[in-house]
Structures are given as C-alpha cells and as structure tokens.
C-alpha cells in the first residue's frame, strides 16, 4: 500500500517538473512585453529598458528559468509584475470563489446526474431513458457562455432574483457570496451533469449485465437492494473518477464561466495574467493547477482502494 502510494507520488513529481519546464517555455515563447503594457504609451525606450532590468526580464532565458526554479524550491511562487503582491497571495485570494464554485457545481452535477443516469439505466430503452439521454446530449453541447448569458438575462435582469455578476460587496457575508455563486454553479453543474448522466448510465448498464446481478435476482432479492447494494456500489468506481476529474478540471477550467460572471477566481486570474503577460502569475498559477490536478488524481487512486479492494491487491 505504502509502496503503491510512494510510486504514484514519485510519478506526480516528475509530471510537475515537466509542467514547470513547459509552462516557462510557453509563456516566454508567446510574443508581447509586460513592461510596455505596464508603463503605457508615454514610456520611452529607456524607461522600458530600465523596468526590464528591474524585473530581471533582461537576463537570458536559462538564467531566468534557473532563478524561478530556485525560488520554487524555497517554496516561493514569485512576485506578480502587476498586482504588487506575491503570486501565492494572489492565488489564495482567488481560491475561495473557485473552490466554492467547483464544489457547488460538482454537487449540482452529482445530484442531477447520478439519479438521472440510474433511472435511464434501470428503464433502459423507455421514454424516460430517451428523454434523459437527449437532455444529456443537449447539455453536453450547449456552450457555457451562452447558458450563462441566458441565465443572467432571466434570473438577474428580468426577475432580479440573483446578482448578475461578481462575488459580492467587500463586506458581503458568506450567504451573500454563495448567492452570487448560484447562477455560475448552475451553469457548470448543468453542463457537467450531462457527462455524469452518461457515465452513470453506461456504468450501471455494464454492471446490470453481470452474472452476480442475475444471481441476486434469481435468489429473490428485492430490486431496490440489488440496485443500491450491488449495482450502484460497483458502478461507483468510474463515477467517482469522473466526479473527481470534473472537480480538478474546474479548478482551472471555470475560465469561461468566471469571465461571464466576472468572478474573481483562479480561472479569471490566469486569463487576465495572460493578457497582461504577467509571467510569474501565469507560471505560478498553472503550476499550482497542475499540482492540484495531479494530487486529485492521486486521491482518486486512493479512493479506488477503498471502493474496490481488488485494486489494492493488484498494485505491484
């Protein structure tokens, strides 16, 4: 068990090192000059050169990379060029909306997706299955910005039930903040529930065809018990995987929704950093997102061992 986890952890570190190299190269390969943007049109060539020196952007790229890695090894993600604060602090400030949004959205996706998927599998081929599958198809193909705009139009502008955007006033309570998150969470939750429905349905159908389900039916177990104890329990492995990955994806993948709803989250931070060419923020944030993704995968692996003991035995 320990060996299994240690091996996975070693692999994770290699992935992160590769991500660091890749992220650094990609940000520097993109054209654009953060200093010219920072100083504006009135800046002279000398001003720009002086600022480049101040931020260490005049050094050769390998030196800049080495300096960054050195900082990373000391646990320092760097300092933003634009925000006048360390990258770690900028990230922490934006972690709350993104985490709440992701949790909220995954919650909605699971609550909608699992029961619908189960129903579709149990009554396979029925009108209910057809309806659920069509809705899932539709959900998976609707662009999130469109759904976001429609919800804003309806619930914020027409009905006035929810705020149109943002994350509340500086003094807003947690309740008010969650109210700001409901519409974006609904968008993300609805779209992702489509995937959960399809996965639940497919995975339940697989299990329904198994011998032990036939045996359970043959020995006269009530249908409810069979479904919950035997079928759903065994179907959970892929569903948990998908839920976990959805959660991980949302940490960095809520970009569009965060932009439409102007949420000050991690996705928004990355987008704005890219437009400003704020290298330390792009690098630091992407690395952290990659780390979260890798560790959620690790956590899923660990969860497997709880849901399905065979995985533990198969580990070398």
């Amino acid at each position, binding site marked *: 068990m320990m060996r299994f986890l240690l091996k996975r952890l070693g692999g994770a570190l290699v992935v992160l090192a590769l991500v660091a190299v890749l992220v650094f190269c990609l940000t520097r390969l993109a054209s*654009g000059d953060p200093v010219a943007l920072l100083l504006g049109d009135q800046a002279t060539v000398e001003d720009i050169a002086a600022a480049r020196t101040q931020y260490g952007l005049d050094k050769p790229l390998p030196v800049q990379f080495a300096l960054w890695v050195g900082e990373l090894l000391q646990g320092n993600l760097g300092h933003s060029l634009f925000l006048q604060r360390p990258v770690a602090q900028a990230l922490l400030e934006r972690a709350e909306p993104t985490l709440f949004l992701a949790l909220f959205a995954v919650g909605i996706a699971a609550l909608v997706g699992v029961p619908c998927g189960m129903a579709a599998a149990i009554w396979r081929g029925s009108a209910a299955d057809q309806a659920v599958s069509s809705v899932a198809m539709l959900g998976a193909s609707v662009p999130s910005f469109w759904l976001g705009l429609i919800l804003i139009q309806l619930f914020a502008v027409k009905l006035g039930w929810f705020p149109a955007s943002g994350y509340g006033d500086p003094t807003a309570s947690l309740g008010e903040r969650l109210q700001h998150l409901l519409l974006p969470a609904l968008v993300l939750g609805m779209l992702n529930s489509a995937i959960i429905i399809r996965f639940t349905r497919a995975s339940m159908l697989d299990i329904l065809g198994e011998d032990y389900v036939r045996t359970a039916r043959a020995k006269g177990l009530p249908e409810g018990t069979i479904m919950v104890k035997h079928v759903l329990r065994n179907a959970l492995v892929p569903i948990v995987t998908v839920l976990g990955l959805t959660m991980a994806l949302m940490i960095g993948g809520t970009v*569009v929704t965060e932009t439409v709803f102007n949420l000050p989250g991690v996705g928004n931070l990355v987008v704005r950093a890219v437009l400003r060419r704020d290298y330390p923020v792009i690098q630091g944030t992407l690395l952290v997102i990659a780390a979260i993704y890798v560790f959620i995968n690790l956590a899923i692996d660990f969860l497997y061992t709880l849901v399905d003991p065979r995985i533990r035995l198969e580990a070398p």
Partner: protein
Amino acid sequence: MQTSGTRRVQPQSVSPTSARRALLKASMLATALVLGGTSAWAQNGALPKGGAVNLAMVGEPQGLDPMVSTADLVGTIMQHVYEPLYTFDANWNIAPMLAESLPTVSKDGLSYTIALRKGVKFHNGRDLTADDVVASLQRWMELSPRGKAVGKEVASLTAKGALSVELKLKTPYAPLLAQLALPSGMAAIMAKESIAPQLKEFIGTGPYKFKERRPDQFTVLTRFDNYTARKEPASGYAGKREAVLDELRFVPVPSANTRVEGSLSGQFHYADLLPVEAMGRVEKGAPAVVPIVTKNFGFPYIVFNTKEGVLANQPLRRAVQTAVGTGELMAAGFGDNRFFTVEPNFFPKGTPYYSDAGSKLYNERNPQVAKDLAAKAGYNADQPVRIMASRQYEFHYNMALVMAEQLKKAGFKTDLQVVDWATLVQRRNDAKLWDVYFTHSGLLPEPMLSPPQLGDGAPGWWDSADKKASLAAFNQETNPTKRGALWGKVQQVVYDEVPFIEVGKFNSLSARSAKLVGYTPAVWPFFWNTGLKN
C-alpha cells in the same frame, strides 16, 4: 472566452495613449449628452448623504500610483485621493485646485510663482506646505513618463516660504499648466512623509481616502471627513468638491457585456464605457438606467513607420493617404453614426485649436490617383504594406480590414497582421517589424499630450525639419490665442508628411443608475458631488 467587448474603448486596464479623456473646451457640458438631468441635485445642495456605490470599470488598474502609470483608469480612481495644483473646469480652462489661484508668470515666460491654499489637510491630519509640493513634483519629474517630459524643460523648483513655490523653466513651455492639471500620469501632491519610490501608503488631500484594494475584485475608497473644499461653485473638475457618498467601490469588470447586464440588473450604480451596440438595451432599461453619451471622447489614428520599411518613403505615404477613405473606416469601426464624426480638424469646432488646415488631404479615397502617386514614388508591387492591428479593440481590427481593402484597390500589396494588444505594443518598438499600426487616444485639451508621435522617439520615429520648426513655434508661444493659430501650421505638416492619420472622432457610451444623483458626465468620471437616492 470574451477577452474584450466589441468596440470597447479600454479593455483590461491597458490603453493606448491613456485612452480615457477628453472633451474639449466649451464642448463638455454642451455636447456631453446626458439623457436625464441631474444637475438640479448639485445646484440645490440637496444630495442625500451616505451610501456606498458599485462602479463597474473596464479593468483592474495597473497599480495605484497615479504618477507612475499614465493609464486613465489609475487616474480616474486616484483623482479622488490625490489632487493636483491645477485642474480643468467644465470648459477645459485651467483652474486652480491646491494652488490658491492661477500662477504669476514672469514677462519672459520662464518663472512661475505658485501660491498654495492655506489650511488644506492631508489624510493624516497634517497641513499642506510648499515642501510637500516640491517633493511631490520632484518625484513626478523623476518617475512619471509625463513628468519626465516636463522635467526636461524645468531649470529649478524651490519652496519660497511655507505656502509658495517657484518653478523656473529653461525655455518658455506653453503646455506646463495642462501637464500639471491632467488626471492621468498625474502631478499628484502627496504628503512628503509618504513619498517613496514605491508608495506604501496613499496620503493625499482628496475628498476620499484609500481603504483597500483586492486586485480583480475591488478598490475601495472612503469619505475623508476633514476634506478642505474650495469655495467656488463646482465646474468640471474644478471648484467645490464634496464627498457625499460614504464609500466608492471600483469594481473591475473587463467583460463589456457583463458591465451592461450588471447595470441593467441594478447591481452597478455606474458602468463605464459600454459597447455602442448596447445603446438599445440601455435605453430599454429606462427609467431605472440612464445612458450617458460623451461626444468627441477620442480618436482612432493610424501610425506609419517613417524610419524603415516601404512607407519610410514620404511620397508613398501620401499615396496611401490618398487611397484611404476615413469615412468608411469610421463606419466600419463604430457602426451607428450617433457614435462617430468624420471631419478633418483634429479639434472640434468652437475650441481654441480648431483648424481646417490640410483638410483637402482628408478622406480622399481615390484609388486611381493613389495608384499614380505610388508609381511616381517608385512603389514596387512586390513590397507588401504590413498592417498591424489588435482584436482586443474590435474597432481597430474592423478599420484595418477596410483599410487593407482600400489599399489593394489602389494597387498596393498588403499583409494584415492581427496580434493581441500585448504583442502589438512590443512589436511597434522595433522598426523592422511593421509599416502601419492602429491605435486610438482620448481627445485631450492640449495638443502636445497626444498622440505621442508629436514628441520624439515614439513608434513611427517621425522626425523632420518642418515638424521641429512648427512645434517649436507652437510650444514657445504662451499666449493662448496665438497658440490656436500656430496649431493649424502643425496640423498642416501632419497632413503633408503623413506620420499618422487621424481617422475621425468617436463618442463613448456609459450608463448610470437613476438612483445615482448629481453625477456630471466627465471623461475621467468622478464621484464627488454625487449622491445615492433611496
């Protein structure tokens, strides 16, 4: 992902030539078309006290140091915290702010004596003195791009007693007071003890104090209770300022569409710079939402590389000028003709710098003549004209598309390079990479402030004997009436030598909640003398 709203003037807090600004003399109140009058509130002094407002701005400010950044957004926010010595009134005349009155200028135009108001309080409770002014202006001349330009003209700056400052120039420099008055790249007066290369605290004399900034979330200012107001009635940025609202929250909302929805839903009390296509929706939001159209807000301009590449050849630039139809470009850029004007004068009629010099060379759109001119200039049809434009400002891109077509009609080969704004501002500094680029600027009350190509060393690298001579005459004349006439000569040189083409003028659209009362439309919007109705 929507990185910029269509035709949004200023995305992501990054602006060409500090875009927000300027209406011109006499035109501001007359032409800033405010649909729904609010001035009665200001005149009656019956503004309801208290309240907090959410102000949706186009992005996150680059920082909060109003000297270092020339971005309009930084100036818009920090003009509530810091005040300059001089400012502009409603007719774009220079008016005193922290200075007691307009300066006493020596006959040779070289020495300015500036008396300061007595008993003006800083946010830390101390009184303003001449030492604060000298220290602040010195910092401005060292750090601010605008201040550095002024610093080159200044021979000395000294305190004369507790409440008087003397500024001596090397040669007469007419734009001095306008430079001291502008809110962007502001000559802000700061408490001496708070001055540092990187400001740690923001201690000014303004009606609002800095409270908190959370990047990409908000910048919050609160009322300064001991604010020392001027006695004159309010006019533009000048005169009496009163902090009526308790709290101003500047919220960065880069997505233009989100600003529109937020103002329609009542979440924002003010939404800055909306896409002109949103006019219909904002009008439908009446009576809860009031549109604000600001005439002659800014101008798009096309910069030519006069140093290297195919258009370094001046007769060829003339050929391009002849091929271009600026009317079509403005229509492509701004659509609805309520939002733009096609006219050759760089400054609107009725303002001191209005001139029709060079107007024959404006909006010619004559491909045949252009073709002949190009042939005479020795144009070889294998040489592409490289046009650089960004989609971050949709109107730049739309205009670039049309211009490329107009050039093709005149026999030019074109190479349209669409890049993001961050890339454009980098590449334009390298003369080898481009021939033409699109940008825009706010219309400023002083010609020397924009576009930067009127100065030295700006991208395009325009440098000629006629430029130097006409600008020297213009800058050394301190008499405003004579300066007006001299500007026409500069404008003529621009038309003759084609270092850039001013395409036309555009108007801006913003929106406010009907609850926000007393608000006076301004190019750098301000929220003193503004209250919140229940």
